[in-house]
């Protein structure tokens, strides 16, 4: 980040583009200035503003972990003007990156605990960061369970990594909304699968990210399982512009999602005004 001009991105180039699903691409990006790349540090869960000059900027979580520093990875779902353009980019193309922004996950407080990741669709992206970070420090954490759902098997991101996750002793539960030819894993919505699995809340942290409707029912489900508000972590999305707590739009009450978030515990959310 530029101290005098927090709106000015650092130039970066795309090293590789991975087509995850029909409308999600993953970009692997390196800063052009080697010293920027070398000195770059961040917490899992922190975000970046990715720009295409002439089109605009959008916010994405850095979904590569801080422990793997050869590139920064972003997964981008095509929904609006900027993401449309990002999807047209190829390896070698230039982008702007302002990072790290936001608070990131409080992983220190998760050490020694069992972890439950619950993700839906593109919502797996922030979870992947923390998951890989934990896998790189596997001994610091207890059981790791991942419940990951998408509409169809084709809508699951990071499929090429599932094997590695499982090899690292991750209990990976995959589910899709409806029956699908050749699909051998679970079928049903994430909240249903959660109640079927019914993981014990004892000494466990649940980290939830996905579409608003999924989050709503998962939070309800977790409550039923006996999870306390402080054991439930989620990430919020808001329309952002500046990313540095100035431009004003991403507030929920006095909190700005861009600097005070995007990671909030359910406890924190319950203390904020209800304007999601």
């Amino acid at each position, binding site marked *: *980040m530029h*101290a*005098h*001009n*927090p*709106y*000015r*991105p650092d*130039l970066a180039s795309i090293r590789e583009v991975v087509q995850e699903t029909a409308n999600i691409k993953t970009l692997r990006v390196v800063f052009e200035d080697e010293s920027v790349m070398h000195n770059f540090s961040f917490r899992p869960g922190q975000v970046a503003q990715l*720009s295409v*000059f*002439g*089109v*605009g*900027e*959008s916010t994405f979580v850095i979904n590569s972990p801080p422990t793997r520093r050869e590139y920064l990875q972003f997964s981008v779902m095509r*929904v*609006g*003007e900027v*993401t449309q353009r990002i999807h047209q980019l190829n390896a*070698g193309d*230039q982008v*702007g990156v302002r990072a790290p922004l936001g608070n990131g996950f409080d992983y220190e407080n998760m050490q020694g605990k069992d972890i439950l990741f619950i993700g839906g669709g593109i919502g797996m992206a922030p979870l992947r960061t923390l998951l890989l970070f934990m896998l790189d420090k596997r001994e610091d954490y207890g059981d790791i369970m991942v419940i990951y759902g998408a509409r169809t098997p084709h809508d699951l991101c990071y499929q090429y990594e599932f094997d590695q996750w499982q090899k690292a002793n991750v209990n990976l539960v995959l589910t899709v909304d409806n029956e699908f030819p050749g699909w051998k894993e679970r079928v049903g919505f994430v909240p249903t699968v959660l109640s079927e699995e019914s993981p014990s809340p004892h000494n466990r942290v649940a980290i939830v990210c996905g579409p*608003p409707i999924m989050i709503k029912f998962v939070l309800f489900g977790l409550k039923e399982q006996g999870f306390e508000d402080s054991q439930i972590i989620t990430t919020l*999305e*808001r*329309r952002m*512009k*500046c990313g*540095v*707590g*100035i*431009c*004003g*739009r991403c*507030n*929920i*009450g*006095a909190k700005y999602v861009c*600097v005070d978030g995007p990671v909030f515990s359910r406890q924190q959310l319950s203390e904020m*005004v*209800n*304007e*999601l």
Partner: protein
Amino acid sequence: MDTAIKFIAFDQLNSALDRISEQLDVWVPVASKDQKRVIQFAPYRPGMTLVLDHQTTLGPKQVVLPQVEALFRFDYRKSADEPSRQKVQLEDPHPPAPTLIFGARPCDVKGFLVLDQVFSAGPFVDGIYAARREQTLFATMVCGQQDSACFCSSVGSGPTDRTGSDLWITPIAAGYVVEALSDRAHPVMAWLQEAATELHVAAAGKVQEEAARQQVGNLAVDQCQQHFLQRFADTNYWQEVAGQCLSCGICTFVCPTCYCFSITDEMKDKHGERIRSWDSCMFFTYTLEASGHNPRPSRLERYRNRVGHKFSYFPEKYQGLIACCGCGRCIRNCPVSIDIRKAVQNLQGQNHACS
């Protein structure tokens, strides 16, 4: 160093400003050519007629936070090593020139004290704003004109509030008495030629006293921070105070303390700018997400956020500072005469039956 109190006779005002504007960029309140009641700050040019006996339609906010400004420029150029590729070059905006805002009101200056928190208090500092703020001097005039929409005394300011000003102007029968309030004012004082006489100073003292006696507005804002939060979910209340809102941007655009902005890229051919432009929390698109979700979809939520931001969220974040300067512009200019004082005054009290 010239620390004497100065005097500008009415007929000497332009020649004084001519001298100052040779050294600094000077912004003054002037009436629009065709609509005499539309008064705005504009760069001073010799011969201009200043309007100093009316509050301006738009405060001087735009001098430090222009309605549109470039955050940086970008240019696509052919890459030297790979001619088929375009490489981007970025360029920061030019540093600002020293500027004097002449003839602002205490409420106008109070607005900047609010903006300063947002742009300069961190965690990130907006260097573009901070540099311009650093270069800007305020010659503020004691305020003798209040109307039924003014309420500056209610929000910790008042007609003689000198906080944040560098020079202090008092209009008397013969002209303007000018005092320096900060060290930064001394060069400007030196360019003013006529020293004030004892009579001038005494007359100015009278005007000050008279203005200081004015209690402008009777809104009580203590504890509005908590009262707002208690009122937050009371839909009937917000319907009552802002059901008539048209969701236009007037209140935010004329507000000295509203600063929210949008950032967009504008490009022509291979050159462009990332600009910031005033945005309004009253607009539907302000919080509209690409997915179509909008956390503040209706006018009530947006108005509630505006009140909350000024009277609850802001003081919560910045040591009790209320993000309102009581200038009354939002009330005066609202097409449907929504009164933010009423919205704040009634926060306290029983949750509403649909009255």
